[in-house]
């Protein structure tokens, strides 16, 4: 035999997951577990069964995520460090938000979110700059800026969570309960999804496009907080005091985020299809196949999470309003969005449609989604008791 036996064995035998893990991965797992244990030992007393359930599911979830996408590890650790720093700076007095430098200019939720906003806009510029000049370096800067924005944004949410308890223990709640907070969430999730695909496909050319949506969201966020001082922390209305909210809303925003991403990759797709074939944009954008593939993957991911989110929403409704389905405008629009993408998936998958029409549809899909997410709150009244503009 030309090849020695054990060589063949090691070649053939699938190295199992755990043997592929590096020391860093085990460290990561250790830290997450320790953190969870600490949280439980400190606050377990105040947790009800559901919260314990959520904790015990998020812990392995986070570990797995960090193993699957390594970049999550440094990201999560930095956010944790910053958040703890912010909390420590507060030292149990909300007044410090204005007094302490580190809070006033960095880690109080408001300032952190401002940083996020600024960094996202800068990242958008950088990505486009990189695309136009074709400079690898500028594009890399874009990625770093995006990571920075994501760090500040999530830190902002974490600190805000703490602040809500600081203002008045009765107010305390996870910050996914009004339009201001979910807009931050939207920016974060969309940004993370993008960076995931950026790493996966080793291509930064799409950054500007995706970040464009995020910048738009940031614009709204700023208008909303300055015009309506929506960044004020208010207690929850009774209808929102439900553990369902804690999972329903984030699941929803994974959906919204992915759909937004898909729409923007489709925009790129359309530019490449209709743009002049020798134009530098056309040349620097990824291949149509790749764009199409990302679009499909994003819509699939969004659809999957949106399905879950809608189901969770129904279960929540069953508990809050006495019926799992009331054809309330928000519910109905969620269904519309969902059906729309179901149709899209069927066309692409079962009829094998590809190309410009599907790209156009994905773009339209974003507007449908946008209406479900904003328009309903603005124009239609319903049972959904938050986010009135």
């Amino acid at each position, binding site marked *: 035999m030309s*090849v020695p036996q054990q060589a063949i064995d090691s070649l053939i035998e*699938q190295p199992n997951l755990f043997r592929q893990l590096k020391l860093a991965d085990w460290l990561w797992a250790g830290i997450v577990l320790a953190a969870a244990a600490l949280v439980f030992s400190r606050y377990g007393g105040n947790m009800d069964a559901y919260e314990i359930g959520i904790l015990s599911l998020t812990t392995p979830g986070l570990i797995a995520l960090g193993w699957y996408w390594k970049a999550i590890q440094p990201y999560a650790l930095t956010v944790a460090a910053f958040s703890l720093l912010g909390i420590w700076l507060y030292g149990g007095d909300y007044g410090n938000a204005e007094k302490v430098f580190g809070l006033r200019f960095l880690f109080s939720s408001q300032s952190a979110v401002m940083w996020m906003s600024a960094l996202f806009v800068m990242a958008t510029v950088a990505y486009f700059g990189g695309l136009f000049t074709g400079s690898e370096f500028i594009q890399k800067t874009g990625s770093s800026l995006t990571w920075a924005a994501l760090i500040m944004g999530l830190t902002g949410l974490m600190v805000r969570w703490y602040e809500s308890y600081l203002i008045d223990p009765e107010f305390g709640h996870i910050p996914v309960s009004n339009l201001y907070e979910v807009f931050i969430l939207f920016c974060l999730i969309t940004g993370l999804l993008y960076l995931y695909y950026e790493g996966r496909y080793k291509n930064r050319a799409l950054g500007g496009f995706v970040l464009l949506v995020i910048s738009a969201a940031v614009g709204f966020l700023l208008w909303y907080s300055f015009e309506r001082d929506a960044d004020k922390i208010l207690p929850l209305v*009774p209808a929102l*005091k439900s553990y369902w909210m804690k999972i329903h809303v984030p699941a929803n925003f994974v959906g919204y985020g992915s759909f937004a991403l898909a729409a923007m990759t489709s925009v790129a797709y359309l530019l490449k299809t209709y743009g002049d074939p020798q134009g530098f944009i056309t040349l620097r954008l990824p291949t149509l196949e790749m764009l199409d593939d990302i679009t499909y993957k994003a819509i699939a991911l969004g659809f999957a999470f949106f399905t879950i989110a809608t*189901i969770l929403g129904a279960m929540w409704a069953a508990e809050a309003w006495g019926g799992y389905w009331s054809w309330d405008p928000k519910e*109905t629009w969620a269904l519309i969005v969902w059906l729309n993408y179901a*149709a899209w998936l*069927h066309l692409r998958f079962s009829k094998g449609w590809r190309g410009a029409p599907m790209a156009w549809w994905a773009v339209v899909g974003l507007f449908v989604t946008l209406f479900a997410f904003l328009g309903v709150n603005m124009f239609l009244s319903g049972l959904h008791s938050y986010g009135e503009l």
Partner: protein
Amino acid sequence: MKSSPTAVARLIKFLGSMNLAISLLMVVAIASIIGTILKQNQPYTDYEIKFGPFWFDIFKSLGLYDMYSAAWFLAILTFLLLSIATCVGRNTPGILRELRHFRENAQEKSLRAMKHQLSLSSELSSQDAHAMAQRILAAQGFKTRQKVADSHIVVAGMKGRANHWGYWFTHIGMIVILLGAGILDNGSLAIRIAEWEGKLKPETRTIPVAEVPAISQLPASNAAYRGSVDIPEGNRANVIFLPVRDGYLVQYLPFDVEVKDFRVEHYSTGMPKSFESDLVIHDKSEPKPLATTIAVNHPLVYKGIAIYQANFGDGGSEVKLRLYPFNNPQAAQNMDGKIFSDYNLTRDNKQYKLELNDFRLFNINDIEGPDGKTKKQNIGPSITFKVRDATGQAMEYQNYMSPIDIKGQRYLISGVRGTPAEPFRYLHIPLDPKGGIDRFMTFLSNIQNPELVKKSALATTQTSMQETAIQKPELENQVVESMVRLTNLFSSKGSEGVMQEITERFPENQRANAADAFMKVLNASLRALYLETLKQEGVTGEPSDADWQFFDDSIMAVDKISAYGSPWFLQMTSFKQIEASGLQITRSPGKPVVYFGSVMLAVGVFLLFYVAHRRIWVWITPRENNRSEVVVTGSSNRNQPEFDSYFNKLQGIFQQAMAQEVNHVRSTASD
């Protein structure tokens, strides 16, 4: 009648066609939009006002006011259901084949035609190559089947069959959901049918439950329903009301629900923190009643019937009222009232009806603080009522019990409006230093008292005449006379009245001056009367600024009275709040079914997206002196790009494990 098989076949083909499926998905989506734009299940009168009689009828006939249970919409959903069902039926045989058959009998030609393939000639004997191929595929998690012919050996493997289960779960899940929600839980459908059969007829009048005829009642045995009922504290009910278009049905419950107490807890900001009710369930089939507490997001599920805290309102609070007739404030009278009751009153032998509509303990309003910033603040209890005259005309009022502080001066506030569409216009009655409204009322009766008016008019004119040392009796009378006239005019018709008189008596160009003069005169008289009022009250010495502030406020108030509409000012002196808890009560046997379907759907979608059904074939041909030629091919039904790189990795393994020389590789791998 019987239809030819071809017709059936065509029908099935049509129902199962992807085009229909996609069209249906879009149709449902677009149809659903209507109901979100046109607010559903509002009082029909609202629709009539909004659209006018013509469109109102058209929309009504289209069932747009309760669209989601309209026949045409249910029909579309049924179509979707059929489409999915047929589709699953049609795809299932094919999928079963996919799952069962490893295709170990595939022809070499067809394999060689495949997009992903590697062919190499190996040093291994065909048996060894066979064993090796099995080992590799097994290690990769493939299930394999072998075909050993003397001319060649085929190892056919596949993995990721769960993908096809995903298809079943997704679509059967949808079917389960649609059936669970559409059949088991569809109370409105059952009602529709009963209506068609003439067994049911919604009640449209607002009458006591006891008087609702049997044809508008549903028995406690009814399988599925969703309705609501308001139960005042301390009362019990064994019925709920199901809204049906412009009417309602009375649904009986298998038990009595008693509301012991309803509570609203508030945050420090005054925002409501929780709504909860202490309930007692009286169930004849149980030895003793069940006491429990429900709150928003924390319903009670009792024997398959769920009771939710939906909303709340007044349950007939008891109030003590004091009525001051504006045209004779001294004749004030007390009365006891109960919210939701009417009371007949007479004033100057005119008939009025006082309808008490609502009591509110908290009123969180935007109040302008001294810093000029408006902030939310609780301004205490209020009572809402209507005063209806003999002709049936009514004005609506909202009176606040406790005085409200505006820039240091305290007022009793009463809002008035003609229709719910208008905003309230407010009457501010200033409070005297003692914190009562006596001074205002005395002042009011003084300016309505002819002798007093004349007396004080005389006094003031004479003093002013002496000061100016003029001796003109006729002028004096003139002044006095006009003072009296203007004062009466003002106290009966307000400044409106005065202006009216001016416009009647003077030409355009003189009116401004006239108004000036009139106001001076009127003001002099009113001031005199106010001083008189203070005297009666026993205030000695010069009136303070506060007193003059009070005077100005009083004049403002008097000015508004003529347009106020009610002959009384109604003051709430005390109350006993009785709240009603708004309960939503549902029975939905389909819920577990729907949830089960939902889980299937969710699991199915993930399997569909994230599991790919992959096949690998290894075709081994024995060659002379114990060598063999090996062809490896593969295919996947999902994620081609990923399969490309996977196949690359796999062929690497095959090459190293068996190859001597690689004849040729075909793969569209990206790297």
